[in-house]
């Protein structure tokens, strides 16, 4: 079955459309820029290879994320097997504390951060969803100005637009972003 119209594969647009989203997704999971970049290149290449298998049941982005997830799992498997095994060490620090150690030492102090990460993931995903609904130039200018924090002058030179032009583009983008985020998040 050929992919439906809205879910078509277009590798030439992958980098522009998804690389920032995928990068943000990966960096929160591996915490290393270079590794994140490697994983994304692998994902893109794997995506190219298995393009024929894309049935168009999900969006292109969901499909790429599912490939990326496997790459991230593979990465963790690999570093684990490099070590030989996953070690769990429990130190018996104070001899007198027998009995209580299990609950004290195994308590999951990461609970709060785990939830934060989840919230942050959702937030990022919403931001990128909204960004993808903007016209291409608005999204580009908005990203450069808001996320990459480029100077107005640099963006103007780069894209060959006047400052007042830039602000009008930013205004339209922010208006749409605010409406979109309001629906989904704020």
């Amino acid at each position: 079955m050929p992919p439906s119209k809205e879910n078509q594969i277009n590798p030439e647009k992958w980098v522009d459309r998804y690389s920032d989203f995928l990068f943000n997704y990966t960096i929160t999971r591996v915490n290393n820029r270079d590794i994140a970049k490697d994983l994304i290149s692998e994902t893109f290449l794997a995506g190219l290879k298995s393009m024929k298998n894309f049935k168009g049941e999900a969006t292109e982005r969901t499909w790429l994320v599912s490939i990326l997830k496997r790459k991230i799992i593979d990465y963790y498997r690999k570093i684990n097997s490099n070590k030989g095994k996953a070690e769990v060490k429990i130190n018996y620090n104070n001899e007198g504390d027998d009995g209580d150690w299990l609950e004290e030492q195994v308590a999951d102090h990461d609970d709060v951060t785990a939830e934060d990460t989840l919230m942050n993931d959702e937030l990022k995903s919403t931001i990128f969803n909204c960004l993808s609904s903007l016209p291409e130039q608005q999204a580009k200018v908005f990203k450069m100005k808001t996320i990459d924090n480029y100077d107005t002058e640099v963006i103007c030179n780069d894209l060959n637009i006047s400052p007042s032009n830039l602000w009008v583009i930013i205004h339209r983008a922010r208006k749409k972003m605010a409406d979109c985020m309001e629906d989904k998040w704020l």
Partner: protein
Amino acid sequence: MSTSKNLRHSLCEKYGVFCDKCQYDEASIWEKLKLKFHLIMCGECRKYSQKNTQLSEVIKNAKLSNLTPEEQESFKMLLQKQMQNSSSKNS
């Protein structure tokens, strides 16, 4: 009626831009003052100003980190190379 609506719309667009500049801390004192006065009178712009500030906060909280243009370019090159390779294999 519709002309006054249009006028209002273009006014709000102008002040909306001032409001955006404030978000990036790039508004001049004069622009800030004009915006303050306008906000007293215009509910529409007050609403936008509020949403706009929220948007800035949310984006700041998300701690987004993007790829540099060079990094994106290297991805593009990689993909292009791979596509050329596979198409030359097929032909």
